[in-house]
């Protein structure tokens, strides 16, 4: 154990050399910007950075990519807090409380609570994981199709509790997400399903255009409907937002909630280690947990720091988790680490069980890059804070068209086809309609992320053995399914109690 830390310390010193620090800084800045721009995901940013890394030595290239990953995860929260659109999927839950806080006139607090939570969650997660790579990896390997299926069902059922007004609507939203993934070519045999015979629907609805469409339009159109003709400078109206806050106060806000910080970090780490789920699920789950454990769950969504801390601490801890999975197994946890894996193989490094012993310099170099990029991320955001300030003081009439253009580029660029832009428009309409119908958006997104995985693991389990009882008799799987049922029952019970106390169900629809 001591050797690990000696080695790590040496690698951190190396990382501070100009040779590695420069690409790391460049990557972190690119990540923050890419993460902050709505519609530009971390995946897209890392793909854009990839060509620049070919000419560098392996660790320089991987340092740049690690910087993008860390910077992007934190950068997503800036947009989430300032304009209410998650800059990346992993900042979805940050919008729930970050944006209300900005609306309450505290944009600086919203950003810095997010940044410091990301920093602390990332650092805690990183240190914890460097020490426990082996055991965690062993657990993840034991998960077969039954366990994965039940885990995903559990994740979905938990999100049903996210919804303030109606559990039925929350579950319906999740079901809609699952139904969207069913349309298109089936993941097992490539049979076209529910396509009405069209080529357009054959490839299914790609995740990113759907996500961008639903969130961007739900948000932008809700802004537009409140605009008045001739009102002039709509966004500038109201108190002038200040980004300056006392850093000590913000840090104390986080550190005075150690349980929340550690629990959110733990959720992020665990979800990061399990391949295929990724940060987009971690932040929503951590938010939900924070709400469930809270003494005042009704305050969630009104702009309280707890919501931001849960989301940001978990999504940055998630980065650490994914990095460990890729290093220990050579298995990418998400699209971002898949690109990193590609970069490693291009440089002749095969991550896997032997990685750390065969390439200790590179392996510890990645850990070091990760740890060093956290303070760089904080500095980048601090240095650019005037710029973020300008982003929100731009009149909405200018900002909205530009954001829409970026959404089009984001939808188009990942696959380079116009069809994805049509999907963007379609789900823009759908997202706005859902807001108007009072259906929450978060469960839909989780359903969308997990849908294919749920189906594939279900079919794998059945192909292995058609006996349905195995889902219950496998201990991990059975436990997770019991927990799913418990989660829904608990949410129902909480909801009923809340209604009885309040007398009448309130009707607040703006919970994205």
């Amino acid at each position, binding site marked *: 154990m001591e050797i690990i830390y000696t080695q790590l310390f040496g690698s951190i010193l190396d990382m501070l050399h100009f040779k590695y620090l420069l690409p790391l800084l460049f990557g972190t800045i690119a990540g923050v910007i890419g993460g902050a721009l709505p519609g530009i995901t971390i*995946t897209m940013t890392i*793909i854009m950075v*990839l060509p620049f890394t*070919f000419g560098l030595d392996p660790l320089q290239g991987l340092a740049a990519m690690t910087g993008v990953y860390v910077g992007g995860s934190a950068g997503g929260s800036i947009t989430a807090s300032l304009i209410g659109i998650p800059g990346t999927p992993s900042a979805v839950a940050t919008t729930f409380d970050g944006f209300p806080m900005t609306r309450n006139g505290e944009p600086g607090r919203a950003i810095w609570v997010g940044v410091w939570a990301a920093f602390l969650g990332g650092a805690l997660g990183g240190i914890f994981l460097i020490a426990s790579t082996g055991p965690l990896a062993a657990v993840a*390997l*034991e*998960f*077969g*199709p039954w366990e994965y299926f039940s885990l995903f069902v559990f994740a979905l059922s938990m999100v049903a509790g996210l919804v303030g007004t109606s559990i039925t609507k929350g579950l319906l939203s999740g079901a809609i997400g699952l139904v969207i993934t069913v349309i*298109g*070519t089936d*993941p*097992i*045999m*490539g049979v076209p399903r529910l396509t009405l015979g069209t*080529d357009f629907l*054959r*490839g*299914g609805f*790609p995740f990113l255009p759907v996500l961008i469409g639903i969130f961007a339009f739900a948000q932008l159109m809700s802004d537009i409907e409140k605009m008045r003709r001739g009102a002039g400078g709509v966004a500038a109206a109201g108190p002038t937002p200040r980004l300056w806050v006392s850093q000590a106060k913000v840090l104390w806000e986080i550190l005075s909630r150690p349980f929340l910080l550690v629990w959110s970090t733990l959720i992020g780490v665990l979800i990061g280690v399990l*391949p*295929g789920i990724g940060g987009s699920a971690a932040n929503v789950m951590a938010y939900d947990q924070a709400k469930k454990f809270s003494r005042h769950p009704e305050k969630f969504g009104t702009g309280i720091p707890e919501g931001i801390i849960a989301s940001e601490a978990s999504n940055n801890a998630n980065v650490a988790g994914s990095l460990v999975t890729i290093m220990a*197994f*050579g*298995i*990418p946890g998400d*699209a971002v680490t*898949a*690109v*990193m*894996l*590609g970069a490693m*193989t*291009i440089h*002749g490094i*095969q991550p*896997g*069980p*032997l*990685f750390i012993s*065969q390439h200790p310099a590179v392996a510890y170099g990645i850990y070091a890059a990760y740890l060093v990029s956290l303070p760089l991320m904080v500095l980048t955001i601090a240095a650019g804070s005037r710029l973020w300030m300008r982003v929100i003081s731009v009149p909405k009439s200018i900002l909205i068209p530009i954001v829409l253009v970026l959404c089009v580029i984001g939808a188009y660029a*990942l*696959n*380079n*086809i116009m069809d994805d832009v049509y999907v963007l428009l379609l789900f823009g309409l759908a997202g706005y309609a859902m807001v108007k119908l009072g259906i929450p958006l978060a469960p839909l997104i989780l359903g969308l992320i997990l849908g294919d995985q749920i189906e*594939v693991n279900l*079919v*794998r389990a059945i*192909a*292995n053995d058609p006996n349905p009882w195995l889902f219950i008799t496998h201990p991990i799987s059975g436990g997770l399914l019991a927990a799913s049922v418990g989660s829904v029952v608990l949410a129902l019970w909480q909801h009923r109690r809340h209604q009885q106390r309040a007398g009448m169900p309130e009707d607040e629809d703006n919970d994205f």
Partner: protein
Amino acid sequence: MPSLHTKETKTMKRIIAAVSCALVAASASAAYPDRPVKLIVPWAAGGDTDNIFRPFAPLLQKHLAQTVVIANVGGASGTVGEREAKNAPADGYTVFAPHDFVHSAYYTGVTDVRYTDFDPICMISSTPSVITASPKTPWKAWAQLQADAKARPGQITVGASLGSTSQFSMALVEKAAGIKFKYIPYDGLAPRMNAILGGHIDLTDSNLTQKSKVQAGLLKFIAIMSEKRNPEIPDVPTMKELGFNVVYAVSRGLMVPKGTPEAVQATLATACVAAAKEPAFANSMTLQGTEVRFLDRKGYAQFLKDNDALYKEISDELGLTKKR
């Protein structure tokens, strides 16, 4: 054999260069390429195919003297990108980077786009399949695996992308050895590795990129489906040595939409030859567990034709062929 091969292609290269020069001179139009060329990789960034074309693109760019941009157009087993490439203008500014899925996807009915909708430019690489077993299985060598498979037909689990190359290779083994496996759907090599390390599947088709896991005792290579043993893994026998005529590799190359002007095809082919010969390309392919296997336009066309017939045959035998 390889030396003869290069000699042949060298001559070929000269001829092609001469012909293309003459053609370009003859035509009054502006010289191709005068703007960036889009290379459609029909799978996500970071996948096997992407990893092979990423290092190839800059080399192609060097010899084409024009920017080459990789566009990852993923979805529906590669067929979304295939359709996109087919519908692109036949002007040489859109190049398609397929692998053998073009045959299997057509016969299993995933798409109605066929390899004949394209003109071949060159083949650049070939990745031999290796039968790989989970550490939780008792077999040490092929003979034990075969005996076990005969004793429990249809019970040994194989992770594969159903209807795609990783199933076709194992189906060839089944057929040659007279055994029967149970297929579990795992799309892509990465999820299969996860499942096989955890013992959730017994066997899968993988390749030399997994060598380090074998050395660590986490996986077992049972046999390789190439003509000769691979120097990287000299202890692993070929299926041929074991007495089964099973040779299977996934090959990748470049194609352009049918009807692309002859001069443009020739220019691309010339650049492709030069790029595939670069030592840098050979190096990165060795790291990917892949052999550089170059075929020129004619050779690739013949290869595609033979390969297509083979895929039709296997697809028919597996009962996967879609009636049309």
